[in-house]
């Protein structure tokens, strides 16, 4: 019962914030809207009984990635954009139509297959324990986990190398 109310509230907020990302003319406000949608998504994960993933969403997305985005926005000092959308009216209309069609397709598919999924009636009632997740992570997905460590190392090297390119934001 209360889950239903919470879901609709969070869904409304999520759509609102996402539209804010799309529509706001200032990139800084777009990024702040994205921060909002990340926090709402974290609440939604909590609602779906994966509190650990919810906390990770807060730490990684809201607390780290979005801080970086907001910081870069403030560093660039981007003004409000007069023309925020690329392309002309017709091409944009086509793009909107395609995205709408895509959303409709996914929605219709979900609606058609809903009996197939809900028929299994295996809805989780208890909270997903971190331990069962860790079992999967460090046994079944062990290779992926180690590869991820290597990828993070490569990204660090790449970021440092990119920042070495001459110039500087204060040179302008």
């Amino acid at each position, binding site marked *: 019962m209360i889950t239903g109310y919470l879901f609709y509230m969070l869904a409304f907020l999520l759509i609102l914030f996402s539209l804010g990302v799309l529509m706001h003319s200032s990139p800084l406000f777009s990024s702040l809207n994205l921060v909002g949608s990340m926090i709402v998504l974290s609440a939604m994960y909590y609602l779906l009984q994966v509190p650990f993933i919810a*906390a990770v*969403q*807060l730490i990684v997305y809201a*607390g*780290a990635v979005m*801080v970086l985005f907001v910081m870069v926005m403030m560093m660039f000092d981007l003004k409000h954009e007069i023309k925020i959308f690329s392309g002309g009216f017709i091409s944009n209309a086509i793009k909107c139509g395609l995205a709408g069609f895509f959303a409709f397709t996914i929605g219709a598919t979900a609606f058609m297959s809903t009996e197939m999924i809900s028929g299994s009636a295996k809805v989780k009632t208890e909270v997903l324990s971190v331990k069962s997740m860790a079992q999967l992570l460090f046994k079944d997905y062990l290779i992926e986990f180690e590869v991820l460590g290597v990828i993070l190392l490569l990204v660090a090297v790449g970021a440092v190398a990119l920042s070495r390119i001459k110039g500087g934001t204060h040179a302008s």
Partner: protein
Amino acid sequence: MGSDLVEVLINSVKLVLIFLLMVQLVPILVWVERRGSAFIQNRYGPNRVGPFGLMQLLADAVKFVFKEEFVPGKGHKLIFYAAPVVALIPGALAFAAIPLANTFHLEPFMFLGESWGPYDINFQGYNVGIGIVFILGVSSLGAYALLLAGWGSANKYSLYGALRAVAQMISYELALGLSIVGAILVYNTFDFHSIIAQQAGALSFTISGRELGIPFLPNWGIFYQPLGAFLFLVAAFAETNRLPFDLPEAESELIAGFHTEYGGMKMLMFYLGEYGHMLVASALLVTFYFGGYQLPFVSHVMIEDMLKSFGLGINMANVLTAFLFFTVFMIKCLIFLWIYVWVRWTLPRFRYDQLMDLGWKTMLPWALANTIVTAVVVFLARI
């Protein structure tokens, strides 16, 4: 939030009380800071208004309320006003997730002509089950208040102060997060109640099946994780931007850092956020390494039984015990808050490159070493 009216009421009052607890701590801490610095520097400090200068804070509060309203001309109004409000939220949300006293049981009682209960009441805003990870997640949102304040003021000193503060916060967040991993390895849980329960009694541990114990020491985490506790304390100092790590507010370089353009109540709200963070850090330190709300060697059942033997009712005895434990918890927290003040007036400020070097090249490797050694020792002890 609760199944019936009384429980919902109790829980709501609890939330508000915990938040007010955080808010009212600020004037006390400001007083402690002024008098404490005076004590350390061998002078009097504020002593004119009221006994021991206690009323000085009231005078300050009145002054804050009647300050002039000011927004810098080029500043962004919405962001400028939003920043202090945002600064309040992470500290409050994090503090409400920490248990302040033991869970106590209320037998059914009569209220408004109806019978209510029984209840089991946590002295805690909410029990999220993943405790420490939730707190790390929520307090990582603290960076936004600084960024918003720095950008909204349209002042380059504010912006630089904010960027410095954020760079410092995120650098020390690594050491903070990593220093706790050792403690989690020892306790095997994220949940605060379980962590505190494991610290009951006298110090005892099992090595390869043999029980070893030191009867005169409490079973606190500090004896398992001394290095982790120290790293946590230092990282918490840097997280809260306190001296010796208060580079964002270095007066000689940056005026007052990210809140240069703020005054009056809005400035006070940044202080609320900062002291809230300090309180959360102290509470975490107490919970992880100093036995939480427990008195050493004494369990809450013993005190409840003792109170009952004095002829108190069950409910009364349980509530009184919970309040006793709450007092113990607050005293432990206040000791660490005093350490914050003490360190502030003892150590000089770091230089910025020294600060970053300390975070990345000293504390992070030491925290990593702590984790590895703990893992190996746990493995060898339990195998």
